[in-house]
C-alpha cells in the first residue's frame, strides 16, 4: 500500500539524506569546501544508518561563528566519530534501539561528557514507555548543568526503575535547577542526589530487569 511512501517521507523529514536537501540547507551558509565535505560525510554516514542532520547543523554553526574551515572540518569528523560510537553503544543495548534519533541523542550525550558505557546503560534502562532518545537528552542536559555524569545516570535510571512517569523524567533538569536555586549553596550534584534518594525510596522493585534476549 502506501507504506513505502510513508517510509520515504520519514526519511526525508528526519534524516534529510537526499543530496538536494543537503545542498538546499547549506546554500549560502557554508563555504564550498565545507559543503563538499558535508556531502561526502553525509553520504557515508547515512549508508551506515547514522543521522545526517547533526552534521548539517554543525557545519552551519561553524560557518556562522566564523570558525576557520579546517577547524570546522575537524569538528565535523569528530562528530561523525561520536555518531559511530553512539550507534555501537546503542546496538549493545539492543538491535531495535538504533534509530537515527537515538543515535543523535547518543552523540549529544557523549559530547556532554557521558561515556559510551553510560549511553548503553541508559538505552538498556529505557524500555517502553520510556524513549531512549529522550532519556539520553535528559541525562545530557543534567550533565550540562554540572551534575557529574555518573550521578546524572544514576538519577535518571533510578526514576525509571521506580516507575516514574515519562513526564517526570523529562522534568528532571527543571527539578534540579529548582533545587539549586531554592536551596542555599546546593550544588547541582547535591540536588540530583536528593532527587535520586527520593526516587529510590519510592521504588519497590530491585532496579531494572535485564531481560535475556529471548525467543524469536
Amino acid at each position: 500500500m502506501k507504506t513505502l511512501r510513508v517510509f520515504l517521507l520519514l526519511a526525508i523529514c528526519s534524516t534529510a539524506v537526499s543530496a538536494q536537501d543537503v545542498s538546499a540547507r547549506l546554500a549560502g551558509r557554508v563555504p564550498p569546501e565545507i559543503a563538499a565535505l558535508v556531502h561526502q560525510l553525509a553520504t557515508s554516514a547515512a549508508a551506515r544508518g547514522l543521522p545526517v542532520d547533526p552534521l548539517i547543523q554543525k557545519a552551519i554553526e561553524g560557518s556562522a561563528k566564523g570558525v576557520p574551515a579546517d577547524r570546522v572540518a575537524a569538528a565535523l569528523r569528530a562528530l561523525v566519530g561520536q555518531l559511530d560510537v553512539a550507534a555501537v553503544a546503542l546496538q549493545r543495548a539492543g538491535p531495535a534501539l538504533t534509530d537515527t534519533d537515538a543515535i543523535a541523542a547518543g552523540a549529544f550525550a557523549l559530547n556532554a561528557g557521558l561515556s559510551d558505557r553510560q549511553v548503553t546503560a541508559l538505552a538498556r534502562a529505557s524500555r517502553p514507555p520510556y524513549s531512549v532518545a529522550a532519556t539520553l537528552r535528559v541525562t545530557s542536559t543534567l550533565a550540562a548543568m554540572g551534575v557529574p555524569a555518573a550521578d546524572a545516570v544514576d538519577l535518571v535510571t533510578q526514576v525509571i526503575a521506580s516507575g516514574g512517569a515519562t513526564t517526570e523524567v523529562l522534568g528532571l533538569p527543571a527539578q534540579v535547577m529548582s533545587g539549586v536555586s531554592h536551596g542555599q549553596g546546593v550544588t547541582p550534584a547535591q540536588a540530583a542526589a536528593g532527587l535520586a534518594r527520593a526516587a529510590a525510596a519510592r521504588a519497590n522493585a530491585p532496579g531494572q530487569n535485564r531481560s535475556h534476549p529471548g525467543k524469536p
Partner: protein
Amino acid sequence: MTMTDFHPQVKQLLDGELTLADLPLELRAEGEEALRLLAAVDREPVTFPGLDGRVLTELGRRAKAPGFWRRLRLRPWTLVPAFAAGAALALLLARPIAPPPATTVTVRFVLFAPEAQQVALAGTFNQWDPAATPLVRTGTPGVWAATLTLPAGQHQYAFVVDGARWVPDPGAPAVDDGFGRRNSVLSL
C-alpha cells in the same frame, strides 16, 4: 580420540534439566566447567541496519520476474539510494515511543550586557544566523530580551554580542560546541 565426554548428568545440567546443586559432589567440578562453557556463549543481539533498503533495491532492480511476478514494479522512489529506504525503515523498525505532542513553547531569552551596543540570539532554531533574532533593550538598564515561539524539543544556542562575541547563556546548561566554545542547551 580423547575421553573427554561430559557425564550424562552434566549434560542434563547443560540442558537446563538439573542444577549444579543436584549433581553429586564428585561431578561438581565438571558441572562448573560446563557452566563456564555456557557462560562463554555470545548472545549479543545482531542487527543489520540498511539491509531492508538493500533487499528492496535488489528486488526493484530485477527487470524480469517469472510468471506472477512479472507485474513487479516497486515504485520509482524505492530505487533511491539504499540508505534512504534503509534509514526510513530503520526508523520504523525502531518503533519510537509515542513522540511528544507537536507543540510549540514560547520562551523568553534574557541577557544582562550593559556594555553591549547590540545583542542577538543564534541557535539551531534559526540556522545560527545572528541577523535573524536581535534582542531588544528592556526597561531595566543593561538587560536585553527576546521572546520566541519554538517547537518542542532540544535546541542549542548562544548570544552574539556586538556582532562578534559569542556568549553562552549564563543561566543555562552548557555543552562543548566542537570549536572551542560553549553552546547553551534548551530543552522544551
